[in-house]
């Protein structure tokens, strides 16, 4: 078991982060070189001002028309995304690992808060999953991959909670936590989770078209 722990916390972590970083660079390079090669035209319609205007407006909860049409979903979605990144970056256990490994450190959030947030993230995943079943317009475009992605995202948080609360075997839970997190990291560039990378660009592009060319709000 400990050897597995060493494996997942050492080499696999390195691999996962490398794949995430290199994979992300590759995906961004791929999309940009494709655009350059075949859709050069698009670059002349990108305006930093309007791209940022759009990104900012879509980053404020309940700010856009559609967010107000779906207030609960919007709340859950924001909590989910905030929780995801706050825990990833500011969880004391994560920061300690970074400090031990690289000597870098930054402030952390209280574990109790992180715990609540982790529950919220998992809860959000359940909410998204249930929504995929009960809302016909979502169910219509849902297949197993959508649930798999949700599971992929929820798993590190679920196992994190289990590990933190020492429910089940702590070492096993920690291993599963790390492993699931690593699978998630590796998946990001190569699944629809790639929206993490692409969203600023799709948003920025359409924001530019709407703002600079069409003189109208895109929210």
């Amino acid at each position, binding site marked *: 078991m400990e050897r597995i722990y060493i494996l997942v916390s050492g080499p696999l972590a390195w691999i996962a982060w490398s794949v995430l970083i290199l994979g992300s660079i590759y995906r961004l390079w791929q999309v940009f070189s494709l655009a350059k090669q*075949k859709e050069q035209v*698009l670059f002349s319609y990108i305006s930093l001002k309007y791209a940022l205007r759009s990104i900012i407006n879509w980053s404020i909860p309940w700010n856009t028309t559609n967010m107000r049409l779906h207030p609960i979903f919007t709340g859950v979605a924001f909590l989910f995304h905030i929780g995801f990144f706050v825990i990833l970056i500011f969880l004391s256990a994560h920061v300690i690992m970074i400090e031990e490994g690289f000597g870098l450190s930054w402030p952390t959030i209280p574990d109790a808060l992180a715990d609540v947030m982790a529950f919220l993230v998992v809860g959000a995943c359940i909410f998204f999953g249930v929504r995929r079943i009960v809302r016909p317009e979502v169910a*219509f475009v849902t297949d197993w991959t959508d649930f798999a992605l949700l599971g992929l995202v929820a798993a590190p948080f679920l196992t994190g909670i289990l590990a933190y609360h020492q429910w089940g075997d702590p070492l096993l839970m920690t291993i599963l936590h790390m492993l699931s997190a690593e699978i998630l990291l590796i998946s990001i560039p190569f699944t*629809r989770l790639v929206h993490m990378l*692409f969203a600023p660009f*799709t948003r920025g592009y*359409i924001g530019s078209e709407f703002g600079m060319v069409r003189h*109208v*709000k895109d929210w």
Partner: protein
Amino acid sequence: MKERVWIKDEGIERGAEALTPERIERTINAVLGNETGARLMAYVETCVHCGLCSEACHFYLSRDKDPSYAPVGKVKQTIWPMLKHKGKVSVEFMKQATQIAQTECNLCRRCVQYCPFGIDIAYMMSLVRRIVHKLELTPLYIQDTAHSHSATLNQMWVKDDEWIDALHWQEDEIREEIPNARIPLEKEGADIMYSVIGPEPKFRTQLIYQAAVIMNVAGLNWTMPATPGWDNSDMAMFTGDSEIMARLKRAHFETAARLRVKKIVMGECGHAFRSVYDTGNRVLGWRMPPIPVIHALEFYWDLLNEGRIKVAKQIEEPVTFHDPCNVVRGRGLHEKAREVVRAFCKNLVEMHPNREHNLCCAAGGGVINCGPPFKNARVESNSAKAEQLKATGVKLCIAPCHNCHGGLDDIIHKYGLDMELKFLGEIIYECMEKPEA
């Protein structure tokens, strides 16, 4: 739930008879491979299937929230399988994809405003139409219109002389009202070229009449061309025939350039504005229109603010205003339009939602141009608009777009709304100060 019917259209049916699976595969892969790039890839991979675009769509709203009419639902039934099966889709699939992309989406881009990622679903529907065009499956009536564009450079098979004759005739008519009025043809060096769409000389000549009166009263230095290139409309844009679109827009802009005008003012048409301002110029290499294009709504606003036209009387009865997507989501003219409406009408009652969040008329994007076979489905698919119109309680609706007129007119009849439709130019013509005859 309103059941979707797969409609028999001669263009689609006879086109499908000539199809083979190989040709479908080859064509889809050629279009997706050669004509798309980063945008499609990013859109398809970024879409998390959240379904949040659904409520943007009047088809979805009007068809009891049938998810197969949601924007992403339409992508699911068209682009996704084409990509997944690498073009190996059946003839039946293509027929259905044709109906979906060509007649169940107005390319109104409302869903683009509702997608958290700003995914341009209208772009993807246009891509499907491009494939449909390459497979020669385009519905009969709109294909005929595209043929007219190709052969005459106008939408309605108007022959060179018929166009000039229509203008001469309108000039004669106007002189009954304003004796020294003119429709100056081929006046090189005028400030403005006024351009219209094919149906105007054919059966909406009163719009040319009214525009000419406004031009004359405002004392503008304007002209109209006596050559092909006068028509700003573009159904080829909506059949995915971007080569014919390019030909049309080139003729339009080069006509304006030949006449040495400073700007093109166009009548109250939405799709033509999209073609001239946004889509057509791009396929030719012009980042923006090489000669500024002013839509009628903006033009009226300019005239009013420059004091060139004055309000003589106001419409007393309450009116509502329909925002055409191509000049609102496409150009942000909703406030200027309202200022003009309020100047000429005492009481503007808003529809909800409105402005850039308006609901489409369901006629645009070439849908009404697919003709009678699809009319019932189209009108059925916009009960949402009917409810919106009805809720205003007014009897006069201003719709500054030809397709919107057609679409709303059908809705008004089908849902028994007691409502009259007018172009904004008609209101201005009625209510502005004119010299005594």
